[in-house]
């Protein structure tokens, strides 16, 4: 019902296409802001023009010294502030929703680099500047940048998020209107910034299935497995017994005790950092400087494939990382830093942003 009424409105050139319920909600807020602005503009214009003419200089009529009114000042401070509080609250609510993907959201990976968007689907499909999603399904985009700051935006869905190099950023949406919608990069990123555009194809389920089955080289996790072997990860990260390195089976999203006493969650950001900067965090009981540093050797897309593989490793036993050495500090007295609790590390909101250490 949203879809059909907005489709009608969309014929009018001043209503931008709306492709999801959330976008429609944001548009409602937009029209509220328009209404308030229109009223205020009319009030001020009428006031200025009205007073200017009514009190224009007339012979024999002197200006009357009306210098102020505390009541008026307070009134016209408080009432606009209250109206603005409505805008604030409404906007904050919708924003909070936009930053919290539903649990069932399917994850698609986006890598931005000058000047293209590379897409990786869990079933192994790849895309270049074209994002395909089935209608009605929640989709979470986990995004990385290979170089400068980009920003992924789909106007029809009213979603946008900067893609900042060095960590993952995420946005989510649930498209409800099939169609083809524009994707723009909206953070200036160099010469061909305006060419960094593409399309979102929202497809009906059958149409989507047709598209998805169109050939691939294995699922994303299978691609990751191939990389895992090719890059020698499997020599240390044995799957069935503990070697010199932490077990990866069942690791995803579980808490990990580090050698400095902190506990962190092994989420996407943690896995990415562990691959690209392995010495940034050392698991308790293991040594530093053993894992090679893959920064520069693995692209962001490779990292995404590897993470998909690690996620796919189901666990039967809880990962107890005992290692061969007793848990020890680095010689720095624990008084310097208290262990962070699990709750503090779990950031359920906003982008999947890695604490840098």
């Amino acid at each position, binding site marked *: 019902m949203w879809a059909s009424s907005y489709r009608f409105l969309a014929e009018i050139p*001043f209503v*931008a296409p709306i492709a999801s319920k959330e976008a429609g909600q*944001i548009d409602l*807020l*937009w029209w509220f*802001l328009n209404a308030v*602005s229109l009223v205020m503009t009319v009030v*001020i214009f009428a006031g*200025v023009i009205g*007073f*200017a003419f009514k*009190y*224009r200089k*007339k012979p024999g009529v*002197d*200006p*009357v*010294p*009306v*210098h*102020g*009114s505390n009541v*008026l*000042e307070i009134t*016209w401070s408080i009432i606009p*502030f209250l109206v*603005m509080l409505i*805008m*604030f609250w409404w*906007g904050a609510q*919708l*924003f909070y929703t*936009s930053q919290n993907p539903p649990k069932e959201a399917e994850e698609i990976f986006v890598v931005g680099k000058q000047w293209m968007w590379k897409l990786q689907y869990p079933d192994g499909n790849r895309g270049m500047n074209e994002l395909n999603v089935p209608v009605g399904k929640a989709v979470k985009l986990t995004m990385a940048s290979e*170089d*400068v*700051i980009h*920003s992924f*935006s789909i*106007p*029809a869905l*009213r*979603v*946008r998020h*900067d893609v*900042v*190099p*060095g*960590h993952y950023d995420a946005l989510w949406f649930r498209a409800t209107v099939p169609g083809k919608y524009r994707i723009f*990069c*909206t953070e*200036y990123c*160099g*010469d*061909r910034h305006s*060419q960094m555009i593409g399309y979102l194809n929202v497809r009906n389920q059958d149409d989507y299935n047709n598209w998805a089955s169109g050939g691939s080289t294995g699922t994303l996790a299978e691609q990751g497995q191939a990389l895992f072997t090719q890059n020698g990860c499997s020599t240390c990260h044995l799957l069935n017994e503990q070697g010199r390195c932490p077990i990866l089976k069942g690791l995803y999203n579980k808490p990990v005790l580090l050698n400095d006493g902190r506990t962190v969650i092994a989420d996407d950001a943690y896995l990415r950092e562990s691959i690209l900067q392995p010495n940034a965090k050392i698991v308790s009981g293991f040594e530093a400087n053993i894992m090679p540093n893959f*920064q520069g050797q693995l692209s962001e897309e490779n990292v995404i494939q590897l993470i998909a593989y690690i996620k796919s490793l189901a666990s039967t036993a809880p990962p107890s990382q005992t290692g061969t050495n007793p848990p020890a500090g680095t010689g720095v007295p624990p008084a310097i830093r208290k262990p962070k609790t699990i709750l503090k590390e779990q950031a359920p*909101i*906003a982008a999947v*942003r890695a604490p840098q*250490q």
Partner: protein
Amino acid sequence: MATTYQPTTTEAAAEEPVNYLNVEHGWKSWLFTTDHKRIALLYLFSITLMFITGGAFAILVRLHLTQPQGLFSPETYNRLFTMHGVVMIFFFLVPSIPATLGNFLLPIMIGAKDLAFPRINLLSWYLYMGGALFAIFAVARGGVDTGWTFYAPYSTTYSNSYVLTAAMGAFFAGFSSITTGLNFIVTVHKMRAPGMNWMRMPLMVWANYATGLIQILGTPVVAIALVLVGIERVMHVGIFDPNVGGDPILFQHIFWFYSHPAVYIMILPGMGVISEVIACFSRKRPFGYEFIAASSMGIAILGFLVWGHHMFVTGQSVYTGIVFSFLTFFVAVPSAVKVFNWTATMYKGSVTFESPMLYAFAFIGLFTIGGLTGLYLSTMATDVALHGTYFVVAHFHFVMVGGMVVAFLAGLHFWWPKICGRMYSEPWAKFAALLIFAGFNLTFLPQFVLGYLGMPRRYAAYPPEFQVLNVLSTAGASILGIAFFIPMIYLTYAWFYGPKVGPNPWQAKGLEWTIQSPPTTFNFDQTPTVTEEAYNYGPREENYVA
């Protein structure tokens, strides 16, 4: 035997009283002056040149955007819009009113002979010129293409343009701004004439004082941000480089910590001008004088607390964003209060429609729209949809051009007779005001729609469905560009050939109107003693001889 007596030039000149313009001649008397009025004119000349430069870039940008694929190459376009922003913000808007009208009027308005530190005043102009030379050099050598915001890591690592040069230009301009602000603050505290207590000061003084506070507190932070970008660019040490653990978002925090208060540097002096103009042409004290003064201070202070609203979509924590959003709405209140007070000033006044007043009307209307559209951007959910689009471009042009530039013109027209002792052509002035208003609206109103439809900013090429609105915008820009030249012409003409006027052609109140036009070097023969409240307006006298 009667001969017709022809006065010699010297004798004719001797009839003209000594003023700050004719007291000394020669380039040294200008380049080494410490007279705040001469320094104001030095600034006026320089910033006009920079305005023309920045405006030329703007015209080229708008011409380029008539075509979906553009007229110039993307590389050229990227430099054009960046240089437009850098020149207009750092070299025109930030100094504009404070360095020209503020420098000229502030001492006079409080009854002083000059600013507290006249030589530092001259130094600030030289710092500005140094910075401007760097900027012009960067332009001549091919420009910068990072956007005026210099975001890392593009500016530090990837850009192939003259980032360091442009950043140094902005750095020096920043120190010019700091010294001006410092001068104003000390002057207002220490050099008010007897009887000129704080609540008798003209609102123009309050506005420039509040601006000075922002200048001294905010500008050093962007100075260090630019230094860090420069060092990173030259030495690649990684402070903003994620590959060595640096954080690009840290740059944004440091940058916007200044650049948001900077927009209040750019608008507060304009608001001061409008208060003066509306009071004079309604023949009334500004309604709610204390509230207008307090709101200037409130904006200055609150303006430092809201910078994160430029960063809602960068991945900063939602709670951080919520705090910034709330505080941004808070800072909107004092601006709204001012608009209401100016409108109420006309109530039961005696309003006339000379050109400064027309500019003031334009300011109120355009600033209202600009300010209201800011609310869309403080609202987090709509900001997600509008950030990085032409909506933002339209918003800030409404407040900066429709607000500040219009206010600057209002002030120039109001005080021109005081500055040069002559009056300009009122019909041309009215015509220019209307043309600017029309051209401006045609340029920027379509951009709100473009932003809502999703067109990103800083785009050298765009999808064809946006072309109609872009062409409309360019049509407006052409009108606006021509319209801006008109005052330059008739004001310059009036300087040399306009009819002479006396001290107070507008029958205005304020100490500046009690001294001759143009003023003498030390403004007052004797330090005045202030005994009445500011804006002691009454009806105009009939048969007043200006």
